[in-house]
């Protein structure tokens, strides 16, 4: 079946089998290997991407389901060579060690900050409860998200002043 999908703002299309999963469409057809396949059983969250802005586990969505939709992957976060404040937060606070869970962590927390620009620590921990990290013990991930929240709201304030 032929599908059309906007990936990171760019229109793409592909011929897929109905059983093709979104994670494999992104990795194998579009070469967007930032989306990681970890457990492949809906447990670990490493494959999290945004489907029309909502974070989902892309190993548990069919490619055919996103026909006509917009998907954002970790590759869509940086702009003009500048890391997204979340990515910068993970960099500054060592929010990763092996890095395998990081794409999923970034996409999940990106959606959290859209919904709640100033999340509490408990809200951050609750939000990432579907994303497993086996290295960091989560503390540095939480700190990274807190830094990003502060920077994003400072940036928004500056933009408001400019307006």
């Amino acid at each position, binding site marked *: 079946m032929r599908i059309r999908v906007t990936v990171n703002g760019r229109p793409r299309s592909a011929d897929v089998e109905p*059983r093709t999963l979104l994670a494999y469409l992104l990795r194998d057809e579009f070469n967007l290997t930032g989306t990681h396949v970890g457990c492949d059983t809906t*447990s670990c969250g490493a494959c999290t991407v945004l489907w029309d802005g909502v974070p989902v586990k892309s190993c548990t969505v069919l490619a055919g389901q996103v026909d006509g939709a917009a998907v954002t992957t970790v590759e869509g976060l940086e702009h003009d060579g500048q890391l997204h404040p979340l990515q910068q937060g993970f960099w500054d606070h060592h929010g990763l060690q092996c890095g395998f869970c990081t794409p999923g962590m970034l996409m999940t927390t990106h959606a959290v900050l859209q919904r709640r620009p100033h999340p509490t620590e408990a809200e951050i921990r609750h939000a990432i409860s*579907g*994303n497993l990290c086996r290295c960091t013990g989560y503390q540095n991930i939480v700190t990274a998200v807190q830094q990003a929240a502060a920077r994003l709201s400072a940036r928004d304030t500056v933009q408001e002043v400019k307006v």
Partner: protein
Amino acid sequence: MFPNAFDYAAPTSLEEAVDLLGRYGDEAKLMAGGQSLLPMMKLRLAAPAWLVDINRVPELAGRTETDDALFLGALTRHAAIEWDRDLDADYPLLGETAALIADPLVRNRGTVAGSLAHADPAADWAACLLALGASVTARGPRGNRLITVEDLLVDALTTTLAPDEIITGVTVPRPTGRVAAKSLKLERKVGDFAIVGVSLQVEVGIDGDVTRVGIGLAAVGSTALRAREAETVLLGRRLGRETIREAAALAASAADPVSDRRGSAAYKRDIVRVFVERGLTAVQARLAEGQALGA
């Protein structure tokens, strides 16, 4: 991992979806959120020849409220209920339950009606909706049929839905008195199957006596169970330490758990007792708080 090959249909009307099921019957499987079905298909525990994806059927989206009930369209996702504070006043058990299901990412896709149709004995919604006395509307070639959740659930992964019927939504009756609810779940880690789940809701009259109560149990039987005797013992009485203990003991005897790697039957049964006691105690406190506020 890939599922077995299948043909995919994404109908854009309810009529078309019912037609597809009529044509393919047992060979077809409906998919709403797909958060249980796709993992089962990837593990080849399910291998339908046709997958009918109902996510593009507009009649199944959204929800409506009347004076007596809330109707949740079949595509209502767990997250939509978890994040909707407007439901808390009249339907507190829904938000309580939604927040405990799987993990936040799964909750963005999974649906209430899909969970009921899947009929996993450990599912949170079945216990919750049993406690609330909810019903589902099933649409088939011969029209609509109203089925209580109690009648819907037959056995593990087995319902009374015909192969050509679709759940179009879930009806939850509106409480008439003051109401408070609590959902508790024991799990090894976020997203794992429940070891034991308890969902309960209590309504009281002006005098503080219990007028209606529902206690649903998850993962301690071949379907979700309703602790009828525990409910009966509370009716017409005030919640207090003794009545709560009595109800908790009766709920534990209503449970029918099996020993497995998540715990022994005796352990699970005792968790039911502890959770019902904790749940009713929390409900008692919330009701008292509500009264103090003049609610």
